[in-house]
């Protein structure tokens, strides 16, 4: 009758082939950098990839809580618009901040095993200095801060060999990790979906990419990407606001001292803060982006189809659908009706995109989501195409737009009428946002994976070039 809860022979991790070695998974993206322990279901640390640079003292500050209006303050990003690392020095610092200070990787001398937050974060004000001090402190005190933890890093499918070598160098030289692995984000997204042969559509921050993954490996010929991602969508929103009648102005939250409720469509009645220092354009843009993100989350929707938004009658139909009200931080608000569909239509139909002020904002047919998928499939063997279309995995935060999956399904069935199309998109918001990280978490805690790691010894014997040989 009495039954032990779980005998050790039925440890669930063993049953599912898990074997946790406290590996760390690091997924740097253009918008966010995610870090956490393999085997957990969510990254413990999600930092913005944007960081603050104080021009007067040439210091960098990291993390959301460090970004607030202050003097001589610029916002920068260590990643570039290709979702690859641009500034390696800062990348190293930001990652150390994320892994060592924030994640609290256990030290070789374990004073506190459970030190996930052994350095309690003070309130926003004193934080930055503390964090920076801590940073210095740690790296000086511990020559080998991550001696115990293998590191699994993600990279875009189009990463350059140089960047890959740089990554393993930092891992081995700066942090003294015992082992390292570099995995491509589409592969990990596929693992997160529990599949090995899939077509991955990653609609992220700076890029949208389509990649065929076959048996857990990227098909290089299939890799397609375009700038049509969250950032591009934000620029479309700005164009929408510019062309609206009357113009909609984005006032970021930090500028508003107080506001009064106003009628829809009326100018805002708000008192703005004044600062005795200059607010840099980059900081303002970063803050505006936050507002736009809220707008995306709550208002924008993808025209579900069937047919494109510009097709006969669809726009009129959209006009009659219930609209959504969005209130800007300054209190001005407005009802958004068909525009909320139209603004995302450019992802699917280049003709529907708002004219862009900058050259890079303009997109071609090949850069739309259907164009990318078509190009990706055309580049690979016919025999695998049906299998891929039956396993389309959608990931990336921008894919959270309502109606996205319906539209994708319509587009694909229209493109391939005789093939079975099935879309696998995680239902949980977090799984969509952290798809690649979760896949890395699964991979890094898999018992069979531990034979793959590039060990320290291999690195020392072969140099950084080994990453090209091993992580295929």
């Amino acid at each position, binding site marked *: 009758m*009495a039954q*032990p809860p779980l005998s050790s022979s039925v440890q669930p991790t063993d049953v599912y082939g898990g074997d946790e070695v406290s590996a760390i998974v690091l997924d740097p993206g253009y918008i966010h950098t995610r870090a956490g322990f393999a085997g957990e279901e969510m990254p413990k640390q999600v930092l913005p990839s944007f960081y603050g640079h104080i021009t007067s003292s040439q210091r960098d500050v990291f993390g959301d809580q460090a970004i607030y209006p202050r003097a001589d303050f610029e916002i920068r990003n260590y990643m570039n618009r290709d979702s690859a690392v641009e500034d390696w020095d800062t990348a190293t610092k930001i990652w150390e901040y994320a892994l060592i200070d924030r994640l609290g990787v256990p030290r070789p001398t374990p004073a506190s095993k459970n030190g996930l937050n052994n350095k309690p974060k003070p309130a926003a004000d004193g934080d930055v200095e503390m964090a920076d001090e801590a940073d210095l402190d740690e790296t000086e005190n511990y020559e080998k801060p991550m001696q115990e933890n*293998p590191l699994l890093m993600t990279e875009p499918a189009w990463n350059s060999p140089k960047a890959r070598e740089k990554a393993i160098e930092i891992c081995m030289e700066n942090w003294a990790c015992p082992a390292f692995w570099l995995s491509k984000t589409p592969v990990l997204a596929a693992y997160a979906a529990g599949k090995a042969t899939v077509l991955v559509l990653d609609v992220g921050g700076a890029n949208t990419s389509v990649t065929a993954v076959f048996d857990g490996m990227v098909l290089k010929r299939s890799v397609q990407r375009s700038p049509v991602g969250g950032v591009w969508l934000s620029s479309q929103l700005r164009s929408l606001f510019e062309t609206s009648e009357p113009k909609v102005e984005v006032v970021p939250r930090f500028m508003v001292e107080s506001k009064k409720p106003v009628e829809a469509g009326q100018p805002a009645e708000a008192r703005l803060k004044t600062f005795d220092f200059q607010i840099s354009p980059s900081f303002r843009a970063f803050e505006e982006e936050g507002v736009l993100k809220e707008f995306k989350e709550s208002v924008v929707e993808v025209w579900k189809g069937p047919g494109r938004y510009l097709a006969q009658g669809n726009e009129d139909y959209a006009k009659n659908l219930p609209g959504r009200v969005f209130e800007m931080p300054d209190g001005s608000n407005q009802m958004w009706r068909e525009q909320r569909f139209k603004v995302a239509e450019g992802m699917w139909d280049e003709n529907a995109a708002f004219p862009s002020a900058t050259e890079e904002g303009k997109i071609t047919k090949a850069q739309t989501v259907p164009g990318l998928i078509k190009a990706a499939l055309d580049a690979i063997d016919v025999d695998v195409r049906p299998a891929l279309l039956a396993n389309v995995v959608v990931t990336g935060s921008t894919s959270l737009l309502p109606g996205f999956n319906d539209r994708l399904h319509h587009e694909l069935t*229209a493109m391939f009428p005789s093939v079975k199309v099935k879309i696998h998109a995680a239902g949980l918001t977090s799984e969509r946002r952290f798809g690649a990280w979760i896949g890395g978490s699964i991979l890094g805690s898999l018992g069979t994976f*531990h034979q793959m790691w590039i060990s320290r010894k*291999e690195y020392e014997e072969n140099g950084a070039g080994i990453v090209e040989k091993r992580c295929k």
Partner: protein
Amino acid sequence: MTSRDVHDVLNLPSDHSGAPRPSKKQKTSASRPNLKGLAREVQNLGGDNPIAIVPEVNFFKKRRFASRKPVAKWELKAFTNSARGDDGALVLRHWKKKTDVGAPVEGGQDGEGQQQGEGTSGTEDKPEDSAFAKFNVQVVVPHYTEDQYHSNLQNNDWTKEETDYLLSLAKDFDLRWTLIWDRYDFQPTPPGGDAANGDTSTAVVPAPKQRSMEDLKARYYEVAAKMMAVQKPAQYMTRPEFELYEMMQNFDSEQERKRKQFALNTMSRSKDEAREEESLLLEVKRILARTERFNEERRELYNRLDYPATDSDINSFKTSAGLQNLLQTLMTTDKNKKRKSIMPGEGVSPSSGVPNSAVSETNPANRRESIAASATSNHARRDSEARTPATPADPTPTSAAANKKKGGAQQPERRKLTQQEEQVYGVSYHDRLGSGPTFRYEKINKLYSHKSGQQQLRITNALSELDLPPRLVMPTAAVTAQFEVLWGAVTALVDLRKISDRLDGEIKIEEAKKAERDRAKGIVPEAEKEKEKEGEGEKGGVGEKDGEEKKDGEEKGEGGEQGGQEGEEKKRPGSSGSLTAAGHKRSASVLSAASDKSAKRQKK
């Protein structure tokens, strides 16, 4: 205090206003069971609705206490993974339940337990191996040495370098062709070596060929099949090996290409086309179903028109009793049929239908089988030898039932061996052999026995001239077959020589006759004689022609030859000796040509 009082206090309308108060009270208090452990007043608060009482559940708690054991201890244990092939250079650590030396080892799954035991009792110097190392499996790709490559694998389209590259990719990607093709990026090393960028700028570096997946597959299968055959000749391969071998050998890249083109076309069909095709498919299905029904009906019709079996001996019907018997059986089958004909479709009454169906089903099978059995009995013996290595053909389920009745002695239908199976098992078909053991050279001796002594002599002469012993040293099947070919050629040549000899003789006779005729003109009787002779000669001539063309006029030819020899001058032995010598020389040269030919054939 009752519920009514509560209602009064709260000024609520009474739900049973009409009912007399005291009696109701009595009734309720009487009917309601007295719940234990609850004050009466509290109970009464519930009014007419009974209070819902949920029994306390202490099930979970009890269980927890019952299984209280000392808390399991976990420890951070180091481990290596032997699948890495780095001699345990990478040591990782994971949490494992601690196993004490005294306590029973509980957690040992996958043979991990023993190692754990070792680890804890002894010193911790050697970390245990990961339980997952055993899942590391790798594909086997063919290997070849430099020599093997040059002797077997040369290909105009592929350098050795590129072939090596292909095979290494095949190994890296575990033969997943999609990946191999995707990553295929062969860069030939420039022929000039390190000086290529300097003075030899004119040297043209061959642009790497664009290889399609079919090209890669074709080359790989070619290499794999050839190396397989080098390591193990086809006849010694096991069945799956041979199948693989055949498959790889028969890889048709052109067909693959066409198939892919076809697949591409199907994928790029428009919606209308897809719909049309779908409807066509439906139509086809319908048509097929219809033909099936039609066939069913036709079979039923045939059943009705079934004729009595005629393949049995008619002798039994020659007597009146036999005839009577026949009539009886015909009538019963007729009856059966009448009932049966209704049976398959509508099934009037299941009680009569079922046993009949059993009969009707076994009947045709039985007959067919008996025919097959009689047919097989002839070949059974010769066959059995060939059959034994083959896995017995699985009998089809319908006939299996019938088979059981007969004790399963024969296989219902002889499985036809395919060509490749024959090749694998070494099955060959030949004439019926006599009973008892026979020797292959006897067969050759038999060939001799048909010939006249003189011819035998000549043939053996010819053979000895070719340095062949009259009796083969090693008469294997292949050798005897080849010998028979050679023997046939020799006899043909001997025959031809015989004919040419006779022709020579006849020419001489004719010449002699002509001379005689010239000499003695006008003497009638002699002329008559000559005429007679002429006729004979003509006959002989006809025979010659026959012999030349059909090679069957041997007797006549010999006769003619004898005649010719008689008609020759008296010094026969000498002349014939010289003739045969000349003939020998000629025949030898011809023979050598013939043997050349046969040798060529052998090479093929």
